[in-house]
């Protein structure tokens, strides 16, 4: 039995091709994934991300609890509405999930992945022991991501009034409540845009207003090519419970200071960091024909081997890009085995594309 978001009928109406994604019937595309991708890079597109799990953390100890639960430090959020990306780690450092946490007025909102929902909630509840906190899932909310250079302005025009001012005034990685809506300037595409949490019953009409305003309906296919161009990890592909954030390009999300903050996984990470022998997550670029795909073998110049974790054709660049976990010694070039043949690739630092432009060197 699969779940359906409140926008399911809208997707079918728009001719979406529906696939099972983590137990949810979701649109993979509405015709052309590349056209949807380009709409987000050049104008504006909207994604139904209601399958993602919204969890509110309330209670007197909510900050202390999240400082223990997350590798990044919510104390870095200096004002209400600010957002932070973090890994949620096991004691051995493996990544249970990656998430966004927003500081609200005296509480926090966390958005986690859909395919990890049950284990995440179980873990969060288990770790709440000893803290005065409530962990509350909010299934009554839908969530849409409106992304692209014209996304914010189009949303502002649709909403009008005070909400329009709110949307125009948001800083990057900032979110604000407006009645029972929550509007944040975050996303998973490498473009400017918004992620909007809104009541289920309001979502279909808002979705329709976006389409009527010329915002392109975009499926999970375009979401994947956009996030990969933006060099953003996908849980389950680029990292999972067997992978340290240090081997997943997530080192920047670990708040080592203050030293006495004893977050889950800290001891394991400190030992890994001291040993310094973990592989690294890098970007690969294949400028000739062919497409890099997950699980293809990467061969470094010294013969040591790694593996592509996510690969795709980049519609913006016109050739293939990938994220790969490779030995620490890997230099600026490597080879990838595609159908038995080795192809030369450049090894680069992600992201590949930001705000519509190539950014890697």
């Amino acid at each position, binding site marked *: 039995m699969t779940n359906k978001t409140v926008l399911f009928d809208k997707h079918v109406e728009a001719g979406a091709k529906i696939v099972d994604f983590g137990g949810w019937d979701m649109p993979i595309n509405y015709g052309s994934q*590349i056209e949807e991708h380009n709409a987000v890079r050049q104008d504006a597109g909207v994604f139904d991300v209601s399958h993602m799990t919204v969890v509110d953390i309330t209670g007197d100890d909510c900050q202390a609890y999240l400082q223990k639960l997350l590798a990044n430090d919510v104390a870095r959020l200096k004002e209400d509405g600010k957002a932070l990306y973090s890994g949620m780690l096991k004691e051995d450092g493996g990544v249970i999930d990656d998430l966004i946490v927003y500081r609200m007025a005296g509480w926090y909102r966390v958005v986690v992945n859909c395919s990890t929902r049950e284990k995440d909630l179980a873990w969060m509840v288990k770790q709440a022991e000893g803290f005065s906190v409530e962990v509350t899932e909010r299934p009554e909310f839908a969530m849409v991501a409106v992304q692209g250079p014209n996304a914010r302005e189009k949303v502002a025009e649709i909403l009008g009034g005070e909400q329009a001012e709110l949307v125009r005034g948001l800083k990057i990685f900032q979110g604000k409540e407006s009645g029972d809506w929550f509007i944040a300037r975050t996303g998973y595409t490498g473009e400017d845009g918004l992620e909007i949490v809104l009541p289920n019953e309001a979502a279909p009409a808002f979705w329709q207003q976006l389409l009527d305003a010329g915002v392109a309906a975009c499926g999970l*296919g375009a979401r994947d090519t956009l996030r990969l161009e933006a060099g953003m990890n996908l849980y389950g592909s680029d990292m999972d419970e067997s992978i340290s954030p240090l081997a997943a390009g997530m080192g920047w999300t670990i708040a080592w200071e203050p030293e006495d903050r004893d977050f889950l996984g800290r001891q394991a990470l400190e030992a890994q960091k001291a040993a310094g022998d973990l592989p690294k997550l890098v970007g690969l670029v294949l400028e000739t024909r*062919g*497409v890099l*795909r997950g699980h293809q073998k990467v061969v470094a110049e010294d013969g040591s081997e790694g593996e592509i974790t996510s690969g795709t*054709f980049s519609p913006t660049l016109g050739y293939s890009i990938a994220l790969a976990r490779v030995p620490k010694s890997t230099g600026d070039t490597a080879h990838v085995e595609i*159908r038995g043949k080795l192809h030369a690739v450049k090894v680069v630092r992600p992201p590949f594309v930001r705000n519509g432009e190539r950014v890697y060197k």
Partner: protein
Amino acid sequence: MSEIRPELKYLVSHEWLRVESDGTAFVGISDHAQEAMGDLVFVETPEVGSTVTAGEEAGVVESVKAASDIYAPVSGEVVAINEELEETPEAVNNDPYGDGWMFQIKLSDPAELESLELLSAEDYVAKVEEEDQ
């Protein structure tokens, strides 16, 4: 529902074959196949002058989603390839039975057409519907 052309022969692996009166045949992939693959980004055809064998790999198509082998429906020499696809692979998505043709084979053994397991349009429809169950 995807389009199926009654005048063509099909393979279970979703290639189509259009036999011409001059002893050659054109090969492409079905509308159903292009729809299932999503946007095509590269088409690798066999080289002109090379020989292909019925049922064996002759090329590869890469879509945003995956790579798929293209099998030769009949044996023979490749006499032409659709060079346009190098620049515009999306022609296979937009017009799989026309501008999206991939290569042309000069049949080495026309009797193969009778002996091989080529599907009629009707049988192909039945096969696709069975897959969609």
